[in-house]
Structures are given as C-alpha cells and as structure tokens.
C-alpha cells in the first residue's frame, strides 16, 4: 500500500496547556509530513476533520497524538487506514506536572545547558509513532481452505450432554464421545442431587436422565459410546479426529514426544538430529507421524473437553492417622455415595446400620489446614448432602461434619442453612487428629474446634472428603497430534486443572480450539457444570466463527494478524516450536516449523524467541519496534553540558500499559526520561531491541510485565517468565561488553498495582544514574 501520512495532534485534555504545540508540529514538518492540530479531536468536528483528510487528501496512515490507545479506539477507527495512537495525555502531560518538570524560560532556550524534559518526551513519542507506521502494514486475514463447523464433545456426563444441547440449540452439529457404554457419567451414580433452583433448600432427584432424554431429541447431536479419541490432528476449523474403542491400538494413536532422558546417549551427551529421529521413530513405532492426517478421520471445527473427573482414591497418601485403608468403616465420600445409592447406609465392615457418621473435610496435619487435593465448594456441599442421607435413613441418626473450610457459594448458602436446621447434624471447624477403633465402632478426635477444646465423637462410619481428580491428570485425553505433545503442557501451573490463566479466561485451555468445561477445570457441582457447559459451548462457537473469518479467537479477539515466517533464513533451531505456549507450530523432520495459524493466539512469543528474527506480524514486528527504539533521541554531551539519561521501558500491553495509564489518570508522577513501548507480551520481546537500545547509547532498559509465580496473570500462560529467562541470558552478554548487568531489568506489576509504577520507574532510574551514563553514548 502506498502510504500517505498525516500527523494529528489533539491539544485538548490539558495537552496544549502543557506542551509547546508548535514544537510538536515541528517534528513531522521536519520530515515533510503534514500536521494538523485540533482542540477536541475525538469530538464530532475533530473526527470530521480526519475523515475529510482521508477522503480528500488520500491520507491513509494517521498518527494521532492525544489520548491513550486504550480509549477512543472506536472513534479513531477508519477502514483501510493504518492508525497509530501517540499517548501524550496519560503518559506525558497527566503524569508529568509542569511544577516538577518546568518549561524553559526565553533565556534558557538553546543555551546548551537547559532542556525541557517533558517536551523531549512528547516529541520522542511522536517520532516513535512516525517510525512505527512506516514499518507496518494493514493485516490481511489468513483463511483456511475448508472449515468444519461441527463440534466434538469429549465426555458424555452432565457437562458434555449440557454443552451438546447448548451447541445444538445454537444450530451446530455436535458429536459426543463417551468412553463408557452409556451416557451419564458420575452424575448417574448418585442417590440425590444438590438443589439446582430457587429456593436452593432441599435435595432433588438426579436430573441426568432428563438431560439425556433432552439431548436425544436433537437431531444435530450424535452420540458415540464406547469410544475415545485416538488423535486430534490439524488445527481449529479443520481438526481431523480419529476415534477408537477404549484399549484398542491403532496406527493413528497419537505419537508421544521423546522424554528428556531419551534425548541423550549413555554419557549424557545430546543425540544428533538423525539419531534423535531414529530413537523417536522407535519410541513411537506403529504410529503415524503427527503431520500425517487420517484419511478416514472426521472433521471438526472445535472441541469441548468435558472429560470430567474420577474420585481421588487417597491411596498411598499420608492419611493413616485417619485410619484410611486400615479401618474398613473409614471410606471416601465417593464410596459413601455408592453405598447410599444402593439403599440404607450400612457399614462396610459388618453391614450394620451406620447411625452416627463423621464427615472429615480436611486431613488436618500439623499447621496445614488445607482440604484434600482437588476439592472445593462441591466437597463441602456433598458433605452436607450426605449428612442429610444419614438423617433420612435414621430418625435418631447423627451426622458430624468437621471442616477447615465450609464453602457454600451463591444461593447454595440456603442449602447450608437448611441442613444446619436439622437437629441431628452437627458442624464444627476443627483439626482432626485421629480416627481410631473404639470397641465395635470408631472414635474421632479433633482439636481447636468451635466447642473450644479437644473433643471426641463416637462414630459408626467416617467419611473423608476426597477430591475430584480431573481426567487429564491420568491421561492426555485430547491426544493432540501436536509436536509439543498430546496433552496440555503447563497444567502444573494451574494445580493440574485444564486452564490457562489463574483469574481470567474460563474455558480457555492452553490449546486454541479446545474448551474445557466442568470438573476438568475445577471441582464443580452439577448445577455449576451445566452453567460451565454453556460457557464452553459459546467459546467453541466463537472459535469456529472467528476461524472462518481468519481472525484470532482469544485473547486478542478479532486480531487479523498472524505470524509470518521468512523460511529461507530459518536455521531449524526449533526454539519457536518449543517456546510457543499454545503448541501452534509443528516442525517437520528437518525441524522447519509448520505454522498452524488458527491454533495461534498472536502473542508473538515465537517472534521473541527467534534468533534469526524471521518471524513477524503485519503490524508488529522486529523492524517496527526496532525502528521505534531507534527513533528515540539520545542526547549526548555534544547537545548539553549535562545531558539527561535515556531509558527504554518495554511494557506488556495487557497489564503494565493499562497500569501506566491508570497511574497517569491518578496524576502519579515518574521520571520523564523513560520512553515506553507497548508489546503484545513480554514473551514477544526479542533481545535485538535491547541490544539496539544499548548500542544507541541508552542508559537503562527495563521490561514491565505481569506477575508470575503462584498467581500467574500472563495472558499467554507464561510470557513474562520466558522473558525473565531471556533477560538473565542477556545479562551475561552485557558483562562481556563491560556494561553493568543492572542496566537491563525486569519488573512485575499487576493491572491494579498502578500505585507502584512511580516507585518501580524512579528506583530503576536512580539506580542507573548512580552507575553513570552508558559508555557507548555518542559513538
């Protein structure tokens, strides 16, 4: 496209009062680019001005200097035009008051000693915007040749059936794959169900049968029982799925990547490429390579993973103090439900009536007050439900619940209240110390109870609130024919649940087009699972309806760009394949990556990883950011007797950039010597930008990204962690150049921690000022 540039400077919102508008206009004028100012650019008249220039003068590349790109993006959206927003408001004038950053007096101008930090900051940002638009293009969508709109639902339990019904209602064809001989799953194995509608007070008969009947009425729902997924190959919109019977071995069983210990020889030396291929083929003998598509496979557009859970067997775990495995009348909640579903509650040891039952919610060892693994509010609610069984079966029955956490969210609180009313149900918080034999029965001892002291309770039976283990713990289930492996790679970050972010993005797994619902995602009640199923069904539909337009699904929904590879220069280092958080790339035998655009989430991690810098997006690439870095003015002693230092901040656009904006809105002040560039994810930061900045004489560079660790907030699973590793490596390179390692740093900030921005920025600036200017300055 032939670019015709235009710079538009808004002087509203205080910008014109603080900055020298004429000076700002001088920047594009120097380059021969037209510039206009307006006091209210986002107003009707301002937008008309822009539209008129686009129509009359053929302007198609606009640099709009004013407010942050996070606001008014809909106002400044012009079809067929490249628009870049220069943030003069939040990150210049609102965060840098003239009282601290004074303008120059007439005498001070051009005296070679004084400079206006704020004006320099604003002019640099305009230069950076101009540099960027020169290097970017309007994106064009990458379209698949054919698209399947069918949805595959893995798991025929309450979640899978509900998801299938929801998708079918929306007009999509669905296939449910169920490994058992019939539908229903765990929801079909219970005596009674927790309330699922107002007033949420009493137990109801299981609803699964009615749901199965409802599903059978839809012609768009196909059910395949006694079936599991052998492999899912390809990408969203064109998944090729091979099904098989459980236990069967087929040539389309998914191959597994080599475990690390098989990648080295007996001396611990890495095997060479050819040897690796040989070992890999041997390891996956009889299985077709991931890139071979099953000619008989069925095509699907998206997958809903509703594989559910299995009861935690608590075997081999340290619960001997609870008598588990030793005393036959100590059972798990699942076993108790099985007994209850058969009839009156009786003891496994002698078949006698169990009239006094103790429910233990937390193992209670030492100071650890956590519940059993894979539990949640549902295990609290199930204990309440099962306590009710005891009372239903025996009028003189007693049920005790010892808990550390009693979780009854939402209206299930009504159920808790109604159970509480039962005179034979006794609840207390407490540390359970022991369960022991006591004559014919059991005795449970607990400390720190609400009754104020150590207490003992006689019981006929003890029930442990074991958790609901997601199916993906035992098996990949989805069996993706992806080079990174058949399952989710980083579930360990999410306590083994199929998830991709601690706080946000429900249903999104670490694989685009695979949407998790129900207990695969978190332990849930039937009511929650049904609601969850709706969410996942909508996500699957969103996926199909995004892929068919060639745009990203999530989290950059609607993004038309995709990574473009300049393969002639690829060295087959496989870094991109390995580092992609979503397994979007499948390298071939030689190691050349095969992109799968619809698997991609457009985070740019591949771009950050590539040492050859051959990966980029139409509007976001090595050159566009590199040119912005190079556009930053770095004053030297030739300019001023004591030149200001220059800093580069590469900031994550998801958390850190909004935090900077919010800091500005709150009039928090920080150094005016830092130039910020937003990046899609810190994972996309290529070290070449840092090298460029340093060689240009910039004094310090920092990355500002989301938190990692226990409450990971990365939009792309773990981009900031990847960046952390890369920054550590760059530190070594700096030392070899006799530059201090501290000049490059990385900080974490959450979106709501805007109040920490000034401290983070200023501390870094002061630290580097102590080190002194970059010795390469001016070369």
């Amino acid at each position, binding site marked *: 496209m032939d670019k015709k540039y235009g710079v538009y400077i808004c002087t509203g919102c205080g910008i014109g009062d603080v900055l020298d508008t004429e000076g700002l206009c001088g920047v594009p004028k120097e380059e021969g680019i037209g510039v206009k100012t307006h006091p209210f650019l986002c107003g009707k008249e301002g937008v008309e001005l822009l539209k008129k220039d686009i129509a009359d003068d053929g302007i198609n590349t606009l640099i709009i200097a004013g407010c942050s790109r996070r606001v008014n993006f809909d106002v400044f959206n012009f079809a067929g035009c490249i628009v870049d927003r220069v943030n003069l408001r939040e990150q210049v004038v609102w965060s840098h008051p003239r009282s601290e950053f004074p303008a120059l007096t007439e005498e001070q101008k051009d005296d070679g000693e004084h400079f206006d930090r704020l004006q320099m900051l604003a002019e640099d940002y305009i230069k950076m915007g101009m540099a960027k638009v020169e290097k970017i293009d309007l994106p064009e969508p990458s379209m698949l040749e054919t698209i399947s709109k069918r949805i595959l639902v893995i798991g025929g339990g309450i979640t899978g059936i509900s998801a299938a019904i929801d998708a079918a209602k929306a007009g999509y064809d669905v296939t449910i794959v169920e490994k058992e001989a019939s539908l229903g799953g765990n929801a079909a194995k219970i005596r009674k169900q927790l309330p699922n509608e107002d007033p949420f007070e009493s137990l109801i008969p299981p609803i699964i049968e009615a749901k199965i009947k409802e599903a059978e009425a839809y012609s768009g729902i196909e059910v395949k029982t006694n079936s599991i997924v052998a492999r899912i190959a390809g990408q969203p919109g064109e998944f090729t799925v091979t099904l098989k019977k459980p236990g069967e071995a087929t040539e389309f069983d998914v191959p597994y990547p080599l475990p690390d210990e098989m990648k080295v020889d007996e001396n611990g030396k890495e095997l060479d490429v050819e040897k690796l291929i040989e070992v890999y083929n041997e390891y996956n003998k009889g299985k077709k390579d991931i890139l071979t598509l099953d000619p008989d496979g069925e095509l699907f557009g998206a997958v809903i993973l509703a594989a559910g859970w299995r009861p935690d067997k608590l075997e081999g775990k340290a619960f001997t103090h609870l008598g588990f495995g030793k005393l036959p009348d100590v059972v798990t909640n699942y076993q108790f439900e099985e007994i209850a579903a058969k009839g009156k509650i009786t003891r496994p040891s002698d078949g006698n009536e169990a009239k006094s039952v103790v429910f233990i919610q937390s193992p209670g060892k030492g100071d650890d007050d956590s519940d059993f693994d894979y539990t949640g509010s549902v295990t609290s609610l199930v204990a309440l439900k099962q306590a009710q069984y005891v009372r239903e079966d025996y009028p*003189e029955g*007693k049920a005790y619940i010892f808990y550390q956490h009693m979780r009854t969210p939402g209206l299930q609180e009504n159920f808790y*209240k109604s159970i*509480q*009313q*039962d*005179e*034979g149900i*006794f609840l*207390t*918080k407490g540390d359970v110390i022991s369960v*022991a034999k*006591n004559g014919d029965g059991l*005795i449970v*001892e607990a400390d720190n109870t*609400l*009754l*104020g*002291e*150590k*207490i*003992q*309770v*006689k019981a006929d039976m003890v029930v442990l609130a074991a958790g609901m283990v997601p199916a993906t713990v035992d098996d990949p289930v989805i069996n993706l024919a992806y080079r990174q492996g058949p399952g989710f790679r980083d579930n360990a970050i999410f306590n083994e649940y199929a998830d991709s972010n601690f706080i946000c993005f429900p249903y999104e797994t670490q694989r685009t087009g695979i949407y998790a619902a129900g207990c695969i995602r978190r332990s849930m009640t039937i009511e929650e699972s049904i609601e969850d199923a709706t969410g996942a069904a909508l996500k699957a539909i969103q996926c199909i309806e995004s892929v068919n337009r060639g745009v990203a699904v999530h989290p950059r929904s609607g993004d038309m760009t995709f990574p473009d590879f300049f393969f002639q220069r690829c060295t087959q280092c496989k870094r991109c394949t390995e580092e992609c958080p979503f397994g979007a790339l499948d390298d071939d035998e030689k190691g050349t990556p095969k992109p799968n655009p619809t698997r991609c989430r457009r985070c740019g991690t591949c771009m950050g990883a590539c040492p050859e810098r051959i990966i980029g997006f139409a509007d976001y690439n090595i050159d566009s950011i590199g040119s912005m870095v190079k556009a930053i003015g770095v004053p030297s002693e030739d300019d001023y007797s004591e030149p200001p230092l220059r800093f580069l901040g590469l900031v994550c656009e998801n958390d850190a950039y909004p935090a900077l904006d919010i800091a500005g809105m709150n009039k928090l002040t920080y150094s005016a010597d830092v130039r910020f560039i937003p990046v899609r994810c810190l994972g996309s930061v290529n070290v070449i930008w840092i090298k460029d900045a340093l060689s240009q004489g910039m004094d310090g560079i920092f990355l500002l990204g989301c938190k990692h660790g226990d409450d990971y907030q990365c939009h792309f699973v773990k981009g900031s962690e990847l960046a952390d590793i890369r920054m550590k490596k760059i530190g070594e390179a700096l030392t070899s150049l006799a530059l201090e390692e501290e000049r490059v740093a990385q900080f974490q900030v959450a979106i709501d921690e805007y109040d920490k921005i000034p401290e983070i920025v200023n501390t870094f600036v002061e630290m580097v000022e102590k080190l002194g200017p970059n010795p390469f300055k001016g070369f």
Partner: protein
Amino acid sequence: MADKCLVEPNLEFIKEVVGLGGDTLKKCFQCATCSVVCPIAPDNKPFPRKEMIAASWGLKDKLVGSMDIWLCHNCGDCTTMCPRGAKPGDVLGAIRSYAISEYAVPKFIGKAVNDPKKLPVLLGLPVVIFLVLGFITGLLDFTPGGDKIVHSNFFSSWLVDMIFVPLAAWAVVVFGIGLKRFVNDMHENAVLEGKTDKKKLEIGGLIRGLFSVIPTILKHSKFSECDENKERATAHLMVFYSFIGLFIVTNIFFVVLYVFQIHGPYSQMNPVKWLANVSGIALIIGSALMIKNRMGKTDQVTSYKDWYLLILVLGLGATGMLTEMTRLAGIAGLSYALYFIHLMFVFHLFIFLPFSKLAHLVYRTVAMAYGEYGNR
C-alpha cells in the same frame, strides 16, 4: 478410651430448648458477633457464642450447669446484631428455662408450669385447696357481716397463714435442693472450662461473693449496660423493688399480727401502708411496662412461660390494689371476690416460684455471686 472430652449430642435436649423459645438456635454459624457486642460478657471465654454451639450440638451438661447462662441479662444486643437471625438472647433464655426445670424437683411440676394445657388444672388447684381447707376448718365465711369490710372475716388470716406459711417453706426447700446441685455443677463446669481460678468450692467465699454482688443487683447496674433493651431496666427495676417492698410489708404485718396481736385493715396513715401502696402501684406499672415492651418487640420471642409470669405479676398487683380500693369504696361483694382471686395469684407465686421463670431471682443471684467469688 472415651474420656471427658467425649461429646454426645442429646437430640431431646435440642428439641426441648427449641420448644422453650430457642427455635432459632440452629441458625448460628459461629461468627461470634454476639460475644463481641455483648456489653456484659467477660473477656475470658465470653458468652453467648460458645453457648450457641453447645446448644446446637445438644450438649446439655455443658449448659444447664453453666454460670454464664445466668450472667446473661437478656439485653438482646446479640439478637439484634446477629447476622443470621439466630437470636442468642432468646436461646439463652430458653436454656435458662430448661435449667430451672432441671434443678427444681419434683420435675413434673416444672413441666406443668411450662405447659399451657395444664393451666386450667394449675388455676383450679388453689381454688380447691382454699375451699376444701376453708370448709374443713370453717375459716372461710361466705357471708361475712359487719358494716366494715374486713377481709379476714371472709378469708380468715389463720386460713391464709395455714396455707401460705408452708408454701413459703416449700419454695425454700425446693430452691435449697436445686441450688445444692446447681452450685456444684456450676463449679465443676467452671473448672472444666477454665472460667474460674478456684480449684475447690468454699461456701464461705461464695457467701462473701453474694454480699459483694448485692449492690450490683440493687442498682441493676449490669442490666443498664445493655443497649438494645435499656427501657426494660426501668420496668424490671420497678417490679424488683415493689417485690422487695411487698416482702417487707408482708413480714411487718406478720409480726404485727402474731406479736402485737393487731388485726388489719390498717390505717392509710400508717407508713407501712404507704410502702404497701407505693409497691403495689409500682408492681402494676412495672409489669404493664414489661408487657408493653414485649408487645413492641416483634423480633423477640415471647413464649408461654413469659406470658404466664407477666400476667401473674400484673394480676398480683392489680387484684391486690383493686381489693383495697373496693374495700375503701365499700363494695363488699366485689372486694371479697377480688381478694379471693388475689390469693390465687399469691398461691401461684409461692408454689411455682422455684419452677417458673421467676426462679431466676435465685439462680442468677447465686451465679453472679459465684462469678464474683470465682473471679469470672
């Protein structure tokens, strides 16, 4: 291996407390707001949070012998602030009521007093006794002559004392038996739960404690620490002092009759008569205020036992004053009839004192004395 920390919930106890006006007890979720807002709970192991869980677990032994249920003055601050509507004030009231019938022997009387179905029998009892004894002894004269109305001509003072002196002794004996068990249980419970620093119970110390709480009781100073039911303190104080006044008057007249052989009715100019009249009026006003407060508090449970006592007290005062007024007005028949009814109320007061809610005057006083002695 079962030892003293073994807890065995008593479902019957729970049902009874629920029936006695503690029907909200199972709503408690142990947030302890009640213990925090209670103006009179001590800092060490404050009530009523722990009483609430003990009640919902049906731990009868922890509760009936607890001094804390008596240290509570039923202010109602806890009930007002409770986020779950568990009404700890009412629950403790119900537990106290249970404790009274637990300690007062024989137990069937306590049950009858708390049972509205037994009311006709209880009302008939004094009538039968009065008539039978009066008929046998001839001390009841339904046609008293004379131009002055003299109640003892109708219902002889001999007959009155023949009935009421043994009744007073009965109340003392029943209280005595109950208190012996109560004090021991209270001490045992306090030691077990760490609410006292005394290991061994000394009666002398307890009595010293009693003396030191008397000013507190006379001033109702615990009562007036309450926020929610401040107005109740006034009414209670009026009833409390009128009972003291009437107790003094009765004893003086008893002495005057038997020692100085002077028969009533006495002159209105007599200072003892002044005390009697003031007390009688205070009793009516005080109990009427109590009833008004009760009716105004829709969030507070007012059970049968509460109504029984309130009407007894109001009736006692009203019939007493009306008897006197009709006598002064010279309406003979009505005055004698009112006197008869008045004596029925007095009969109820005496015989059921250790079994009714009014027994709190003994249990609470002893519990407060023990609290003082045991450094609660």
